[in-house]
């Protein structure tokens, strides 16, 4: 009786855990299924479209490179949202924090181009994370000390960041060395810190970052002295050197993976993460345990903002090497569905970011081969989000328990503990 009971409880726990994986997977499958009908209505074959989509994302080194480029910022913003959400700080402001992070990285790389590469890259990464942190300070303070809803404040901070970015990149900058009227030094934003070439054209660009500020790529690794001296003569080595797509696979995805592991560790293996999660689950109970709830919320928000800022930095240092208007549209907002489909778990975020990244990377090929428009991937994405959210309301694990307890009560087993005492 006792061992059967024990097995049964373990089985229930297993069911509950597997449902947390099954729900997003089922949601994604359902999204593909429903979108299949839309593609059919469009007059194309869903199978052909999905095959093209998949091979576009994973079928070649070039495709994989694109997938990796697309998923990297999503991992960071997904982690930002997931950590914040777990800690009771729903950060809708990853978009703005990301823009500010990107500006900081570009500014740093352009201002200090002569630093050694490793130092420059490290400091650029720090700058982007720090700027993300700065951008969440105000919402964090308002939430922790004044209890003001962070959804509103972080959302509004987005618009400030995005408009500021637009302004910085489009403003007609004053030439360096020229003083304003009366010999006044131009204020910070009027100087051309980002090296904007011609702010009046429709698509102004910042200066291209010096090579030292580019994250190392597979290509640069292969071309390094170490590799060429080791394998210089080998045929396969020369073949590998010829693959240009390696130039687009930078260190950024690897750093994203490492960050996910670090956040996993912080979340589940440190005092900081424990406090964050406790406050996120039940601030009242956390207060009873002696946790300083406002301080914990503040720390959670800062971690979240830093992660979002890093997303911008990684994109600039690893992929685009400059900023242009709309350089990373919606990567911040998309962090929310990435986190939710990833079940607010750092490793789940890795998987769901891969799903989102692959959709974007494969979309072009799908359109070229099957003439199914790119917009379909956004339909798939939106449906996956809807299904995943609908799925979370189906708390099958809790339902199982409710049913069992109700049955026990109706069978008059009202005092299970007493019965267990008798058995023990």
């Amino acid at each position, binding site marked *: 009786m006792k061992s059967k009971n024990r097995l049964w409880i373990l089985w229930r726990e297993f069911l*509950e855990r597997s449902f947390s994986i099954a729900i997003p997977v089922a949601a994604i499958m359902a999204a593909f299924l429903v979108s299949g009908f839309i593609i059919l209505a469009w007059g194309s074959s869903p199978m052909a479209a999905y095959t093209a989509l998949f091979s576009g994302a994973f079928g070649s080194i070039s495709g994989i490179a694109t997938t990796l480029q697309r998923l990297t910022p999503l991992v960071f913003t997904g982690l930002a949202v997931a950590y914040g959400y777990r800690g009771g700080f729903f950060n809708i402001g990853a978009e703005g924090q990301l823009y500010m992070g990107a500006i900081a990285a570009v500014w740093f790389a352009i201002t200090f181009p002569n630093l050694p590469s490793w130092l420059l890259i490290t400091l650029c990464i720090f700058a982007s994370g720090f700027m993300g942190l700065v951008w969440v300070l105000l919402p964090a303070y308002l939430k922790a000390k004044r209890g003001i809803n962070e959804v509103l404040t972080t959302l509004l901070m987005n618009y400030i960041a995005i408009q500021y970015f637009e302004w910085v990149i489009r403003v007609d900058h004053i030439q360096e060395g020229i003083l304003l009227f009366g010999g006044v030094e131009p204020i910070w934003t009027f100087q051309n810190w980002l090296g904007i070439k011609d702010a009046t054209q429709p698509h102004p660009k910042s200066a291209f970052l010096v090579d030292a500020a580019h994250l190392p790529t597979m290509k640069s690794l292969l071309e390094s002295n170490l590799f060429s001296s080791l394998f210089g003569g080998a045929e396969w080595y020369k073949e590998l050197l010829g693959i240009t797509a390696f130039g687009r696979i930078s260190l950024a995805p690897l750093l994203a993976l490492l960050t996910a592991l670090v956040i996993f560790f912080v979340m589940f293996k440190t005092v900081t993460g424990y406090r964050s999660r406790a406050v996120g689950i039940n601030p009242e*109970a956390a207060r009873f345990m002696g946790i300083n709830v406002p301080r914990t919320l503040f720390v959670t928000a800062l971690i979240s903002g830093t992660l979002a800022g890093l997303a911008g930095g990684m994109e600039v240092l690893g992929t685009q090497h400059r900023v242009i208007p709309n350089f990373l549209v919606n990567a911040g907002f998309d962090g929310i569905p990435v986190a939710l489909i990833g079940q607010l778990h750092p490793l789940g975020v890795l998987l769901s970011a891969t799903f989102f990244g692959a959709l974007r990377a494969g979309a072009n090929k799908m359109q070229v081969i099957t003439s199914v428009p790119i917009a379909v991937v956004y339909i798939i994405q939106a449906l996956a989000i809807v299904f995943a959210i609908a799925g979370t309301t189906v708390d099958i694990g809790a339902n199982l328990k409710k049913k069992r307890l109700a049955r026990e009560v109706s069978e008059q087993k009202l005092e299970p503990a007493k019965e267990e005492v008798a058995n023990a």
Partner: protein
Amino acid sequence: MTELLRLEKIRKTFPGVLANDDVDLSIEQGEIHALLGENGAGKTTLMNCVYGLYRPDSGKIFWKGKEVSVHQARDAIALGIGMVHQHFMLVPPLTVAENVVLGLPLPREPLLDLSAVEKEVQQTGERYGLLVNPKAQIWQLPVGVQQRVEILKALYRKAELLILDEPTAVLTPGEVEELFKVLRSLANQGISIIFITHKLEEVMALCDRVTVLRNGRKVATVNTSDTNTRELAKMMVGREVFLDIKKPDLMPGEVVLRVKNLSALDNRELPAVKSVSFYIRRNEILGIAGVDGNGQTELAEVLFGMRKATNGTVEVLGYDVTNCSPLEIINRGVAYIPPDRQHTGLLLDFTITENLIGKSYYKLPLSKNGIFQSRPIAEFAASSIKKFDIRTPGPDLKVKLLSGGNQQKVVLAREMSGNPALVIAAQPTRGLDVGATEYVRNQMVEARNTGAAILLISTELEEILTLSDRIAVMYEGEIVGIVPAKGADIHEISEMMAGVLRVGDLTAMDI
């Protein structure tokens, strides 16, 4: 008089709880019938069954002699049953008339013509002495008037039976008088009223008959003219002592907690704790008896730094900890077992291990430089599970999957882990079955025997009598008497709980 409503053997269970156990009830036309019982006695559950919010597992409901089935509130309203909930179901930005008519067909649909409604609201109000401006918006009205709107809403729907769930809980004394006047006038005009309460003097002042519930069972139905508050208190709290706790006589040691003239407000900013003074020594359990809602919970929260003290001091082992943060108070050696383990005692979505380390996770050896040390944590959890006999298949199970008794053991294990000098235990056995109750009580005595001072807050008089060395009784925020538990007179304590007797602190001495 004719019988309006009869309940026969109503039985309602919730997961793990038997809320109503074959309850019978009979309501006559034009009477005010009190449903008296402690919190959790099953009063509201029973009425929700009548009103169609819950479906009873078994039992019959008769309305005017005919058996009826009430599946939803709409059925109950159609029969002529109205219910005023503790939390009002009003739409604040709408007017009184709009709220009254909400969900009903209007005279000139689809046009919104409120003039007829306003007139009728006005007339009904005049008839029963429920004067409200039908054009006023709800949010502008004081709570007492909002309650009238709720009653008007029911009357507008031609209610013959009005169920009021603890209507006085939100009112000032003046408003209570007003409400009683209205209710009497309603009853005079043939409307029956069920008045849910746990306040004895209200029952005596207002009601014709009273049905007492305890632990989901009906104790008795009596005429208020044939009884008194003392007898009702006895019925309400019960007094069977069914557990055998062995408690050796011990010489109390130094004073651990000293409270002087402590006052505090409740969530509605009304005085809840009024100039309370007492002390507790080592090896001593001070039981705080009292009917629920007389300031006990607020007192515990003030002591633990969760609520601001407006006056007075709290000293733990000689240190002034008045209005310190919970963490500072914990660090002085105070443990707190909150009254509601599901919401404030535990993090239900955390595992057993994560809950167990809740008081010591940031200290060596469980963590080093902010990083959790898996092995010491696993050992700590395993030894706690063993020591406190927590029945679970493993330490990584979420706490919400445990039974109530085992959940409470997790709270106990967490709170007792640091050998606290003072344990504040608020309703530590509420909702537990007999086995778990006995376990928790033995742990309290064990902690007392090993040198802790214990403040036990319980609304179960039997628990207070079994465990305490001294008993303080709280009534309306004041301590109306402190008596030694040995040889305590249960009648005397019941009377103090009902507010009809005051004694000085018989245990007071200069320490």
